[in-house]
């Protein structure tokens, strides 16, 4: 084969290549902030134990600078069953660090097992940021009778409480003892936290239980509150468990900013970010048998002599718990 070198020229190849490349890549604009339908970030919980609810609303903004104090938003909640709709009120709140946030609130007592729909929108825009949240179903406790044994010189006294339908550890467990004193004719609750509940607790199919070590509790109370064994009368004891809604779970089991800070992680908000959770709080209250109480060294009231006090034993709100020192 003979190639005529003079017939093959480099210039057309070069110019064709250059012309092709020059035609591309002329757009020099760039905007790193994408357009989005997401308007608000919501953070908060609907708490069964509270008669008012609070949810933080943050407007998603295109600049880093902090938002001004105006947040033009309409916030409503609706209970799915009754369709009862409540409009919430904005409160412009200045935090300790001087920054300002919008916390919407409403007088609302949420009910176990009910679904609530949160909606936030701007008045001039049909786009709605919303979140469904399901309040945990009611959990029923079962308090087993205390087991008291004497092993040589030691006394073992335990009591197990079962929570039906709870199959995993609750978010929080608070155990407390309630005493009555004639000093100001009142009840006093002392919370015990020295026993990690997970040590004496376990999940089962259909229930979760925890076992109280009555002797160790008694020793702790005696060490820290000896006056309760002199002037106080053991009125009862109880456990309050706090459970979160089914979706309120940390990825990997640990709640950290590093993990949850990624937008969209642990979020139930449509057209927005954040999480509106639900909190259920359930309490079991009971009395020890008189013989057990006295055996452990507590003084007990004669209920027949003071029927009015006995009747009021469980009336006092549990919120008056005194943390163990």
């Amino acid at each position, binding site marked *: 084969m003979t190639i005529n070198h003079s017939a093959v020229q480099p210039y057309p190849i070069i110019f064709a290549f250059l012309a092709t490349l020059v035609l591309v890549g002329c757009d020099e604009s760039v905007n790193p902030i994408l357009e989005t339908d997401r308007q608000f970030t919501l953070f908060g919980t609907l708490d069964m134990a509270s008669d008012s609810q609070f949810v933080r609303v943050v407007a998603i903004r295109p600049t880093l600078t902090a938002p001004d104090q105006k947040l033009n938003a309409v916030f409503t909640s609706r209970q799915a069953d009754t369709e009862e709709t409540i409009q919430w009120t904005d409160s412009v709140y200045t935090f300790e660090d001087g920054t300002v946030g919008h916390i919407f609130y409403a007088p609302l007592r949420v009910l176990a097992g009910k679904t609530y729909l949160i909606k936030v929108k701007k008045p001039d825009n049909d786009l709605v940021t919303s979140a469904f949240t399901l309040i945990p179903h009611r959990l029923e406790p079962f308090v087993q009778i205390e087991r008291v044994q004497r092993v040589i010189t030691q006394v073992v006294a335990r009591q197990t409480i079962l929570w039906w339908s709870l199959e995993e550890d609750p978010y929080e467990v608070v155990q407390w003892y309630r005493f009555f004193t004639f000093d100001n004719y009142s009840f006093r609750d002392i919370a015990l936290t020295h026993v990690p509940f997970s040590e004496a607790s376990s999940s089962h199919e259909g229930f979760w239980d925890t076992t109280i070590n009555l002797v160790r509790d008694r020793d702790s109370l005696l060490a820290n509150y000896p006056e309760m064994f002199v002037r106080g009368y053991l009125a009862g004891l109880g456990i309050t468990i706090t459970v979160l809604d089914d979706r309120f779970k940390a990825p990997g089991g640990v709640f950290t900013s590093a993990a949850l*800070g990624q937008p969209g992680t642990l979020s139930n908000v449509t057209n927005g970010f954040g999480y509106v959770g639900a909190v259920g709080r359930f309490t079991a209250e009971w009395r020890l048998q008189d013989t057990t109480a006295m055996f452990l060294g507590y003084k007990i009231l004669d209920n027949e002599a003071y029927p009015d006090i006995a009747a009021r034993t469980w009336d006092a709100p549990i919120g008056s718990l005194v943390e163990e020192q």
Partner: protein
Amino acid sequence: MMRRLSLLLIIVVLGLAEARGQNAVLRGFVTDRADGQPIQGVNVVLTDEGDAFLGSASSRDGVFAISGIPPGRYFLAASFIGYSTHRDTLVLEAGEIRPYNFALDITSGVLGDVLVEAENEGAGAAGVAAGIQSIRPRDIQLIPSPDLSGDLASYLATLPGVVSSGDQGGQLFIRGGEPTQNQVLLDGILIYQPFHLIGFYSAIPSAILNVSDVYAGGFGAKYGGRMSSVIDISTRNGNKQRFSGEFSAAPFISAGLLEGPLIKGKVSFLMSGRFDVIEEGAARIIDAQLPYAFNDQFIKVHAIASENTRISVTGLRSYDRGILGAQTAADADSIKNQVTWKNDAIGARYVMLPTNIPVEAEILVSLSTIENSFGPEATPSRHSRAREINASANVTHFNPGFDIEWGMYFKFNQLDSELSGLFQDLNDDTEFISNAGGYVQTEMPVIERDDMDLTVEPGLRLSSFPSKGRNFLEPRARLIFNYGMHQLSAAAGIYHQEFVGLSDRRDAGDVFTAWTSSPTGRVPQAIHFLGGYQINPWPWLTVALEGFYKDLEQLSVAEWTSFPRFTIRIQPATGTVRGADARIEVNAGPFYGFLNYGYSKVEYVAQQTEIEYWFGPGGYSYSPPHDRRHQANAVGSLNFGGFTLNVRWQYGSGLPFSEALGFDEFVLMDGPKDQFEEPGETRVLYAYPYGGRLPDYHRLDISAEYKVEFGAETALTVLASATNSYDRTNLFYIDLFTLERLDQLPFIPALGLKLEF
């Protein structure tokens, strides 16, 4: 250890066997008679009165060696482009090792009449062979630049697969590798950060260059310690016959070079210095903030110690200081954001051709230091220093038909850092790490025929870090197959990098680099594969295609976070780089030019703990900020009427960056919260990490030079150049938080002068 000693013994015995055998060896140095420079690529051929034909091409040091020569009478011819052919008649005795040094005279002729090998492999813009490309000073002079001193950095940025941070930053990414994964050697001395903050310049002006071999991947066993690429630069020796020099002035730098004999014909010096004049020049021309200062100084003394030995001492210093992203005068004065780096490197090199054994031996001792700081120079908020002391020996063993190269080295490294918590996982401390090892590689001709030849270059490198308890065995291999006008090449290898440079790549404007030993406790590793094809269909045209794949393990990248933080945590990552280059080189009379196109895809897979929660199991795959998918470069040079017109057009598709949906405040919902207690933390609502692309980059640079000669040795060159001729607004980076954009340099007209004497 015993194995290594055994290997060494075998090689030495082989050499002695050659010396004692019946065949003769001819070896020596080839130099340029005019200035005493070694000439690389000289074809030295022996023929007898029959059909015998033996040949060799000279190395960078001008060393040639022909072994396996049966005793007898031979005609020697040595030729090289631009030099008159040297001829001689030799009678070689059995077992003789004949030293033979000679010099070539420059002529206006072209090719000699006998040619074994045109030039070193990889020469020319399309002359890439298994990842190697050789860059000569005359290649660099083709690239339009705003000054007359010419610089390697400008040329490197025209190579496909080389991604530059642009006009500012001084960062080069070669085929997916980070800047600190590139090894730059200057006469064998490590230069940690060889590029200046202004992207046109490296610390190495073209005037001191002899040749630069760029190994974009698949490099041989001689090189180690970096996992991406090697740029092996050899510098010129000073003129051994007369004093000469050059001075140039232009809007960015003023440069000067002096060279000459210290002992005529025996010892020479070469010294060069460049200093920026940005404040007085370029900043005024473009009326913009260019708060950069840089300079570099180079000195080399070279001596012909004896007929068989050469000694050189090389030193380099460079200094850079600047504030990236300065938009206003206040920004430019804000030294708290100032980055500074200083290179100091010095080394001595001893090359000898022993009289009794057919080897070339090189002994190198060097000291290299980089200091990098952020903030005021006197009281930086962050500071990092790396230092390497190197002692190495390289031996090339000339055997009939094939050469064996082997070497040993000992390195001592010191790493200091004071990072003010920039990297949360790194403690500020001083590390002392020793490293010893060796390598062996050979070049074996498997097929040698008139119409085709196949050469295989297997190699093995051993690195040992006693203080870390780590040893690495790294097999390497290269293959070159020539068949007529066609050439096929391939290379593969395993590479490790114990010392890594960490930068916060989340911010393109942050070029502070902290040197440390593998921060995740595991040493980064790369496996390279590449294969290429080259053809010369016509004398004026060379076309080359090359594909490559790199598998990267144990990378350290910044942990992903949605919070605007000044400190980062390191997370492990893996990566792949795949791509292909196409190059066309045209050499047609007064016109020379090349076009190239590069496609590259770099993917990192980050292994951060939380990633599984965000993107599912298996890590998340993303394109790091240097993943430029498409690149094209067109360079043309035309000589007419005493003028030289150079044109370069560069195109690069947009680099990845992270887009956001906006900002909000984040409250950690780790249970029931009192919303009045938690102000929250400002959060960036990022879309997918590095999911966006910046606009494409393109730029046209033009320069015209006219040289006026005054006598045989004095000349004045005048340069007029237009950088970014059509004033393209190329984006350097955009600040997500302020939405301010920082652009690359605008249209820069420049005039320059160079006086040579």
